[in-house]
C-alpha cells in the first residue's frame, strides 16, 4: 500500500542520491513538503555559465532557457534558484534567485581562476524542479574591453587628425577657420564696457572644475582677463564653486601679470557666492543690478538659471555674450543675449581668441573628424534603411 501510495504521488524528492533525476546532488530528503496534487515544475534547460566579459574579474554569468511552466504550461514557476559549488558532486549552496520570466543571473562573488559548477532549479513556492547543471567555468579579468573597440578607433582617428593638423600648423601653414560673430565681438564688448566706465562681469557657469565646459570657460576667462587688464577695466567673476573660484583667481592673476598690470589685480573681485543653483542666480542678479556692468559673459555650464541671469543682464543694458554646451539652455541664451556660442564653438573659443597655430590646428583636426562622422552617419542611415544593422551594432559601445 505504501508503495502504491508513493507511485501515485509525483514530485517527491524521495529519490536516492545517485538517480539521474538529481544528478548526484546531495539534498535533504525532508526538504520538500508533499501534497497529493503537487507536481514539481518543469526544469529550466540549457544552463550555461560563462565568464562575465569585459570586467575586472570576479563575475560569472549563468543563463538558461526558461522552464516550460514559466509563463506557460502549468504557470507554476515563481522563481529560479541558483546554486554553486566547486565540485560537481557535492557542496552546492544557494547563491541567489531570479524572478520568473528571467533567464540570467550574475554571480559577482567568484574567485578568479577557481572552477565553479552552477545548478539552476525552477521553484514554485513548494517544490523544486530537477536540477540542471552547467559545465565548469572560472572567472578571469580581461585586459581589453572588446565592446569599446569602436570607441578606441574613433579616439585614435580624431587624435591622429588633431595631431596631424597641429603639426601642419607648426610648419607655418595657413589654416582657414570660419568667422564666429560671438568671438569677434569679445574685443568690442570689452572696449564698450571700458568706454562706458563700467565693469565687465564674467560668469563661469554653475558646475565644478571636473566639467569640461568649466575648464573651457577658464581658458576664455584668461583671454578676457588679459584684455580687461590691458584696458584697466574692472573684472567681476562671481563663482558657484570654491575650486572654480580658486582656479579663476589664479587665471585672472596670471592674465594681469602677462599684461604687465599685476597691481591692478584684485582677488576680492573673484568671489564665491554659493553652491545652491538659485541662490547663486539671486546673488549674481543682485550684483548685476548694483554694479551695472557694461559687458556680461556667460561661459560654461548652465541650467534653469540661464534665462534668469540673461534677462536681468539685459535689463541693465549690458552687451551679453553667452557660450554653453547645454543644448536645453541654448534657446534661452539665443533669445536674451546679443551673441551666443553654440556647443562646440565654446570649445573653439580659445583657438579663435589666441590665434595660436597649435590651437587652430587642433580645431581643423576636430572639423575633419566631424566630416568623417557625417559620412559614417549617412552610410549608416542608408544601410539601416535597407536592413543592414551591423555597422550600427559595431558602433554601439558596451
Amino acid at each position, binding site marked *: 500500500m505504501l508503495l502504491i501510495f508513493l507511485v501515485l504521488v509525483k514530485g517527491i524528492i524521495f529519490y536516492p542520491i545517485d538517480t539521474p533525476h538529481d544528478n548526484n546532488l546531495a539534498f535533504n530528503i525532508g526538504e520538500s513538503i508533499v501534497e497529493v496534487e503537487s507536481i514539481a515544475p518543469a526544469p529550466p534547460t540549457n544552463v550555461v555559465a560563462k565568464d562575465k566579459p569585459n570586467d575586472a574579474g570576479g563575475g560569472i554569468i549563468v543563463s538558461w532557457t526558461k522552464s516550460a511552466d514559466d509563463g506557460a504550461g502549468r504557470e507554476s514557476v515563481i522563481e529560479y534558484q541558483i546554486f554553486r559549488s566547486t565540485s560537481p558532486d557535492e557542496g552546492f549552496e544557494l547563491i541567489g534567485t531570479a524572478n520568473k520570466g528571467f533567464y540570467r543571473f550574475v554571480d559577482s562573488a567568484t574567485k578568479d581562476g577557481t572552477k565553479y559548477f552552477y545548478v539552476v532549479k525552477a521553484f514554485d513556492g513548494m517544490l523544486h524542479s530537477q536540477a540542471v547543471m552547467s559545465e565548469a567555468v572560472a572567472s578571469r579579468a580581461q585586459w581589453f574591453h572588446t565592446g569599446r573597440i569602436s570607441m578606441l578607433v574613433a579616439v585614435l582617428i580624431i587624435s591622429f587628425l588633431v595631431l596631424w593638423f597641429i603639426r601642419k600648423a607648426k610648419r607655418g601653414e595657413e589654416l582657414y577657420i570660419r568667422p564666429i560673430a560671438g568671438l569677434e565681438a569679445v574685443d568690442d564688448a570689452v572696449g564698450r564696457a571700458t568706454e562706458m566706465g563700467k565693469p565687465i562681469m564674467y560668469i563661469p557657469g554653475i558646475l565644478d572644475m571636473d566639467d569640461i565646459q568649466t575648464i573651457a570657460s577658464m581658458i576664455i576667462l584668461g583671454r578676457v582677463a588679459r584684455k580687461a587688464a590691458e584696458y584697466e577695466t574692472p573684472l567681476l567673476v562671481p563663482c558657484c564653486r570654491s575650486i572654480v573660484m580658486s582656479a579663476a583667481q589664479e587665471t585672472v592673476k596670471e592674465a594681469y601679470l602677462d599684461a604687465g598690470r599685476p597691481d591692478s589685480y584684485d582677488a576680492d573681485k573673484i568671489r*564665491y557666492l554659493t553652491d545652491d543653483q538659485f541662490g547663486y542666480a539671486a546673488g549674481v542678479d543682485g550684483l548685476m543690478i548694483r554694479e551695472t556692468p557694461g559687458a556680461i559673459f556667460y561661459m560654461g555650464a548652465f541650467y534653469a538659471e540661464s534665462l534668469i541671469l540673461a534677462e536681468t543682464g539685459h535689463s541693465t543694458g549690458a552687451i551679453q555674450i553667452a557660450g554653453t554646451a547645454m543644448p536645453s539652455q541654448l534657446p534661452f541664451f539665443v533669445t536674451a543675449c546679443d551673441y551666443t556660442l553654440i556647443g562646440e564653438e565654446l570649445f*573653439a573659443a580659445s583657438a579663435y581668441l589666441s590665434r595660436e597655430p597649435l590651437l587652430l590646428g587642433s580645431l581643423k583636426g576636430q572639423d575633419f573628424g566631424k566630416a568623417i562622422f557625417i559620412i559614417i552617419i549617412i552610410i549608416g542611415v542608408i544601410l539601416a534603411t535597407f536592413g543592414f544593422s551591423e555597422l550600427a551594432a559595431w558602433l554601439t559601445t558596451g
Partner: protein
Amino acid sequence: MKKQIPLIITFIAGMAMIIQYFIPHRPFSDIQQLFNTWFLIITVFAMILGLGNLLKLHTRRLQRRPSGWWYSIVLLIGFAIMFIAGMVWGIERGTPFDYLFWNVHLPMSSMMFALLAFFVASASYRAFRARTPEATLLLVSAILVMIGRVPLGNYIWDKLPLLGDWIMSYPNMAGQRAIMIGIALGVISTSLRIILGIERTYLVGK
C-alpha cells in the same frame, strides 16, 4: 618647475582615465572610482576656502560700509542661523534646520525658479520677431509647441498636441543630436589639448 608639475599631473591623470575606460583589469578598473573619491575629498576641503572667502569678504564690507553693505548683515545672520541650527539640533525631520529648509529655503528657491515664467514672457515678447526666415520658423515652432503642450491646444485643434510632439520628436531631436555630436567632438579636442599640455591658460597662464 611651478608650471611643469601641474602639467605632468594633468597628463598622468588624463591618460589614466582614458586607459581605465579600455582596460577592465585591475588596477585600472579602480582608477575612476579612486579619482572620483579624491575629487570629492578635495571638493569638501575646497568648500572651506569658499566659505572663508565669503565670510572674509562680507565681514570686511561691514567694516568699510560701501553701498549695499546691509545685505552683508543678512548673509552673515542667515549663515550663522543655519550653521548653529544644524550643528546643535541636527538635520533630521522635525529639527529647526529641517523647518528652515522646508519653510524658508524651499520657498525662496521655488520663487527664483518661478521668475522664469515672467522672464520667458518678456524675453519672448522682445526677441521673437519675424526679422528673417529662420526667425519666423523659430517663432512659429515655438508657438505650435507652447500651445500643443497644454490642454488648451487640444481645445483649439485636436491635432495640435500631435504637431507639437512631432516637432519635439523629429526636427528638435535631430537638432539636439547634431549639437551633441559637435559638442562631443569639441570635448575630445579640448581634452586632448589639455592632457597634452597644448592648452594651459587655465592652469599656468600663457
